[in-house]
């Protein structure tokens, strides 16, 4: 379902999405979107953050009271603060306008995949990496990596959120706890250390991807 007040964007999204065999519902403002979503809960909502009648942040909060499937935020460039706020309020992902179709479709696929709760996987694999949450071991090409305790916790958090953007604040809170949200210095140091261990080329990371001004995405 698309909630966006710009007819051109709605048209474009409808063409792209229906040609990829998605069924598209369209709403042109917050009120219409909320009613439509309540009547026919969709698998995914594309929500424009700047709506004419109410702010997208409000719509997001209201939806999150009962809707637990994917919500992708559409926003304009240079609004990292908006994006971080939306992600911290439960948005699954974000796209900045103008966006590429390939990117849009990839984000949608990844978000819909995460709609189905995976039955508590204990071993997560991506590329040549294997994260065993129970044995607390990370293997790269079947070789066990030597990670410190915090490095493993960070790795486990990333692995359990493959494809999802995690804001800096969120990661700091999850790993170091409440009160450490401002200590981005720790995060930088650990991400750098972790990249040196898990990436083929730490300067060209393929797993821990930086999202400028927002956070990290694990692939």
């Amino acid at each position: 379902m698309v909630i966006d007040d710009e007819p051109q964007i709605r048209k474009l999204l409808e063409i792209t999405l229906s040609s990829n065999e998605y069924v598209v519902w369209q709403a042109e403002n917050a009120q219409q979107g909320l009613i439509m979503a309540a009547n026919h809960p969709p698998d995914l909502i594309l929500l424009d953050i700047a709506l004419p009648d109410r702010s997208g942040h409000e719509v997001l909060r209201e939806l999150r009271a009962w809707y637990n499937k994917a919500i992708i935020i559409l926003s304009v460039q240079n609004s990292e603060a908006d994006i971080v706020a939306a992600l911290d309020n439960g948005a699954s992902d974000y796209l900045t306008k103008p966006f590429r179709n390939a990117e849009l479709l990839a984000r949608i696929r990844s978000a819909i995949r995460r709609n189905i709760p995976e039955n508590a996987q204990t071993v997560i694999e991506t590329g040549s990496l294997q994260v065993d949450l129970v044995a607390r071991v990370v293997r790269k090409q079947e070789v066990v990596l030597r990670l410190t305790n915090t490095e493993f916790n960070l790795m486990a958090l990333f692995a359990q959120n493959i494809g999802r953007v995690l804001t800096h604040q969120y990661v700091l809170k999850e790993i170091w706890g409440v009160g450490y949200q401002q200590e981005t210095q720790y995060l930088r140091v650990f991400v750098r250390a972790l990249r040196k261990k898990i990436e083929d080329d730490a300067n060209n990371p393929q797993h821990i991807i930086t999202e400028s001004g927002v956070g990290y995405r694990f692939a």
Partner: protein
Amino acid sequence: MAFTSIRKRPLSTQILISMSVVTGVSVGAFFLKDVFGYREIALMLLMAVSIIAMTFEIIPVLISAVASALIWNFFFIPPLFTFHINNTEDTLLFSLYFLIALVNGVLSTKIREAEKKMREKEEKAQSVKLYDTLFNSLSHELRTPISTIIGSVDALQEEKSKLSEQQQDMLLSEIAEAGERLNRQVGNLLNMSRLESGMLQPKPDWCDPEELFKQVTDKLPPHTQTIHSHLPDPAPLIKMDSGLVEHILVNLLHNAILYTPDATHIHLTLETETTSCTFIVEDDGPGFPENEMALVFEKFHRLPHSKAGGSGLGLSIVKGYVEAMRGTVNLENRLSGGARFVITIPVEISYMNQLQHE
């Protein structure tokens, strides 16, 4: 200017200050009246009035002219402590003094007013000129990609059957490129207006320069030049607004890509001191003409005969962002040819590599 700032004070303050000056000079002269004759003292008082005329508005100037004439008469012209004047020579002198003080005062203020008007006129002419450049540049920079898009779409809609598949693909990539260009220009304009509105507040946070360089090079359009990154090893963490720095470096590298020959080398270097860091962007291109070096950071300034594609805003945004972070930006030509941009920003540096919380 100091003079103008004094003139902006309220009239009462101006009068108070000028009266104190006149009184001060008179008291000083009174003690010296045995050394100098009373005619020399008239010159000293005239001097005081002239200085007042250089700085204050007309009313305090007139008041001090009159006051100083009366003071001179009362305290210095014999017989002392009367307004009476004995001989015709002194009467003439007194009248002349009065006249000179008035003319002096009135003329000085008039000249200053004329100068002020001239300055305002020049400023207005300059802002009209800037406005014109802005408009010409904007309409050109925005209309070119728009024309490309409209024209290409027209061709695709109306003459589709006449166009080969290859030609159609070419038109489509023209549209794509024009879209990118339009997006870039609008981005530049928005950044510029954010800067000018004074709403830009740098938000320093810890950042990993290795990560920053990767972000920067990822954001560049396809290019034939090779970009070499040089970082200290190990690279420290830097506390700065990495979003702004990213913008600055992307703008500088994008410029280098646009304006240097194919297959040349571009170097991006980071050097750190204890409380600052320096970014250097160097290229192998033609460099800048000496007479243009001071102008390149001006809004909408473009080098004569420069290639299409730039907005004339990139470097002024660079300068604005650097200054918002209280840093400096310098441009020089390399001895070996090519341009070198040097940006120094005050930052916090951390070499924390292992953590106490392990």
